[in-house]
């Protein structure tokens, strides 16, 4: 059992957990994730480690409520425990001094971006950040990212905060007004459609782009093949070969379809859960 030492709700539908897992806190690097299971009957779900505290032996997770498991997790409180947490999984993000880096993140992807952007800053990169959210109440980690950014932009779909529009609008603007290359590398993390659009834009400018893929996973150790993605026509397992990949090589259509594989079942599961809860 892994104890929840802190739980807050920093944004609508997004819960922040501080969990005691000393072994993982000691080891984790930016870009890595855990797989957790809430209880005996639970599903194994992957969640990125947004932050850690080696001394306290804790990791921080930001979890968006989208279906049964994440909704149920949202009901947990400080002092509760999670049955299983395994990690750190995945290949850590490649961090070096690239020069200027552009960090484009949307939704809960901002939590995935945070440790990467922080590490890039520590390597003395110039960090340009572009964050996006549906509306004001969905924004997370704004100050934390701002503090490590040399340039900072924020958009909301409905214009309730920052600029109205999408991160891709900011990106297009920056690229249009910039005379020398805008950045040496782009990190784009967020919903699949967003990563896809960003990759399409940067491809036209020949700007190397790293994305963090989130296919459905089961074991997270390379054993089941559920997380397979096509990268440049080659099948890769996102849990052990990724989750970071070259955005220009990803087969986005395949990923989108594979993510919808269990849609019907997921709805059933959530309905079943809601019925149980209201009974």
């Amino acid at each position, binding site marked *: 059992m892994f104890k929840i030492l802190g739980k807050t709700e920093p944004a609508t539908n997004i819960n922040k957990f501080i969990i005691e897992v000393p072994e993982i806190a000691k080891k984790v690097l930016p870009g890595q994730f855990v797989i957790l299971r809430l209880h005996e009957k639970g599903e194994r779900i992957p969640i990125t480690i947004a932050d850690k505290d080696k001394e306290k032996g804790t990791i921080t997770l930001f979890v968006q409520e989208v279906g049964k498991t994440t909704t149920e997790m949202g009901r947990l409180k400080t002092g509760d425990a999670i049955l299983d947490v395994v990690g750190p999984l995945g290949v850590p993000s490649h961090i070096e001094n690239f020069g200027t880096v552009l960090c484009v993140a949307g939704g809960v992807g901002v939590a995935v971006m945070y440790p990467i952007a922080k590490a890039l800053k520590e390597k003395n990169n110039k960090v340009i950040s572009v964050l996006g959210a549906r509306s004001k109440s969905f924004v997370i980690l704004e100050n934390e990212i701002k503090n490590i950014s040399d340039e900072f932009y924020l958009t909301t779909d409905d214009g309730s905060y920052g600029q109205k529009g999408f991160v891709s609008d900011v990106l297009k603007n920056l690229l249009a007004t910039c005379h020398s290359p805008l950045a040496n590398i782009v990190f784009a993390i967020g919903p699949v459609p967003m990563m896809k659009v960003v990759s399409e834009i940067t491809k036209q400018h020949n700007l190397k782009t790293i994305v963090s893929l989130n296919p459905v996973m089961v074991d997270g150790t390379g*054993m089941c093949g559920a997380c397979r993605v096509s990268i440049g026509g080659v099948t890769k397992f996102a849990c052990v070969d990724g989750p970071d990949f070259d955005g220009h090589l990803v087969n986005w259509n395949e990923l989108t379809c594979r993510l919808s594989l269990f849609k019907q079942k997921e709805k059933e*599961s959530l309905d079943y859960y809601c019925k149980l809860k209201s009974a």
Partner: protein
Amino acid sequence: MEKIPRQKMPVQNAKARVKNFASVALGYTEEQAILEAKRCLQCKKPTCIEGCPVEIDIPGFIKKIAEQNFEEAIKILKDKNNLPAICGRVCPQETQCEIKCVLTKKYEPVAIGRLERFIADWGIEQIQDTRYKKQEKPRTMNNEQQTKIAVVGSGPAGLTCAADLAKMGYNVDLFESLHQPGGVLMYGIPEFRLPKKIVEYEINYVKSLGVSISTNVLIGKTKTVQELFDDGYKAVFIGSGAGLPQFLGIPGENLNRIYSANEFLTRVNLMKAYLFPEYDTPINIGRNVVVFGAGNVAMDSARVSLRLGADNVTIIYRRTEKEMPARLEEIENAKEEGVKFHLLTAPVRFIGDENNNVIKVECLKMELGEPDASGRRRPVPIQNSEFIIDIDTAVIAIGQNPNPLIPRTIPGLQLGKHGNIITDEKTGATSIPGIFAGGDIATGAATVIEAMGAGKRAARAINEYLKKSN
């Protein structure tokens, strides 16, 4: 004297059993077991033992069954085999001990596997959980004198190695990456063939010997093997199995509802998708399922598909029935349950609909050509023999390669062509002193009993290694 016939195994009726996940084979009654045991000739030079990778005293335990001395029988069995209730259910006895039984030549062999299962189950019934707890040996964790050994992976190889080392008096810590110990026994082999409760009992027995099991620890990520040595472990045994699924490498393979057997079986067995939505993990299964391959993994996938409600389940295999690697009993069971077989057939490509769901598979007819390096006749495609099958779901069960995660994280470890860890067959020693390995990680996908044999040999070798280095 009138000959006693080989006792038949009582089984659940085929029509009923495809609707549930309960055990197919029901086990001998006491009377049947005693009758069957009496068939054994108690040979002076028992050839059956030669066929057993863990060298069970087969006539010894059978004699005790015949004498109704079950307590002695189980003792003899457990002396060599830490997991008899598992072996009695899944070992391919027909190609191991039973094929060597002297009765095989003229008559039918003694049902050694069924007797093993009978006596192991009897043992489990006797020992209540409370007695297990009482038996659990206290561990002297901080005792400097007691040597600590780490075992990685809790499949049959790791469990056997850990149990044997604990019996020798070592402090053994076993690390497992999944949330439940047991390896393939837990996530691969279905409930109706190997009830998970039985696996849990056997694992409890291993714990009762003093082995401590930590789940959710992925060696190579949570901790490296080097860090285990830094933590004071004097030797490490790696039994991480063959977890890397092979795919066919044909177009359309990443379409929706095409599963690796590992994913398919893990969802069902470990995560209990057959109890969805009470359990959270889903699985999609349509009316028409095809399974590629003809080993145990393929038979299990096919039979699970039937139980999940598929109407038509077809095994597609590129050779003939003679070459099928699955256990005889499982092939027979699958047929009885209505699994169809498309032999001498190989898939060429998958075809999907507009939502990327698989709807068809194109196949080619094959014929057997000249023998290849393995001595088996090679399947050769027949020109222009393409045909198409309508499907909703495909399961790929054509084999697993050794799990690459650990080998990748041990610098300097000598590996074979397929990423397997190269070991000394007699000792399990790897190219690095103090690191031993065995089971599927060394051999590639094999059998439970071979993995156990490797765990046993390694335990012996680790003991000698530690004595020498002291």
